[in-house]
């Protein structure tokens, strides 16, 4: 059993991603959560790169690492009113905390068991150039969902502006 560079990269990225994700949900300071969230997004982008999905990795860095992170950090800065250390407390009742923890562990065990017991059959065949293939799919067979996504983004932006503006435009 040899450890290839791909395996080592995967292990490092997986540790980084999961560690940062744990930090997001466990941190008491919402600013720490926000910056660990950026680290998680970049770790996921690295995982995409190890999966030969370079275009998607770059999209992940741009959209998640750039746009969504800035949006989240912006909202955090705008809405922080209390002591920074108390901005991201765990749930008020002990029941929801334990229910969340036990439920999440049970979910992970069930899905993990399903992943481990399934016999995955690796596909074969030549891998096409990913960007060309994506472009062919997006502007060919899947052009209607593509346009629907465009309309959805436009509506979301307009809706976000209206919601954040307030009813009398203050």
């Amino acid at each position, binding site marked *: 059993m040899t450890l290839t560079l791909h395996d080592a990269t*995967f292990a490092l990225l997986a540790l980084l991603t999961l560690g940062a994700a744990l930090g*997001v949900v466990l941190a008491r300071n919402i600013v720490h959560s926000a910056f660990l*969230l950026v680290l998680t997004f970049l770790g*996921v982008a690295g995982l995409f790169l190890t*999966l030969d999905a370079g275009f998607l990795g770059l999209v992940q860095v741009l*959209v998640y690492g750039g746009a969504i992170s800035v949006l989240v950090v912006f909202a955090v800065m705008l809405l922080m009113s209390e002591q920074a250390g108390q901005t991201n*407390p765990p749930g008020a009742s002990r029941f929801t905390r334990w229910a969340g923890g036990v439920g999440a562990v049970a979910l992970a065990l069930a*899905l993990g068991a399903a992943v481990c017991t399934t016999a995955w059959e690796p596909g074969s065949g030549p891998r096409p150039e990913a960007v060309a293939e*994506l472009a062919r799919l997006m502007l060919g067979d899947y052009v209607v969902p593509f346009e629907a996504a465009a309309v959805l983004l436009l509506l979301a932006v307009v809706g976000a502006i209206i919601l954040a503006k307030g009813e009398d435009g203050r």
Partner: protein
Amino acid sequence: MIGISHYLLVATALFAIGAFGVVAKRNAIAILMSIELMLNAVNINFVAIDRYLAPGGALGQLFAVFVIAVAAAEVSVGLALVISIYRQRRSVNLDDFNLLKW
């Protein structure tokens, strides 16, 4: 040797962490962050299955692109809602949002 199951296990763990955050946190922004974690886990699944089980096309990557687009729309509207309700209640804790309770 790293295979598909390792990627799926990482995605499973990431999804479970996100689910824990959704249930166990109080801050509305933290819950939005946890939802983003879960969406990222799903994207890892799409891309890993595309890479290992169906290498002939890029359909999994296409769906991941759609998920990213929908996630961007969701987080922008979600944060606008949080900002809007913060004006009313001066708080982002979900426990304080009990306007609809009788």
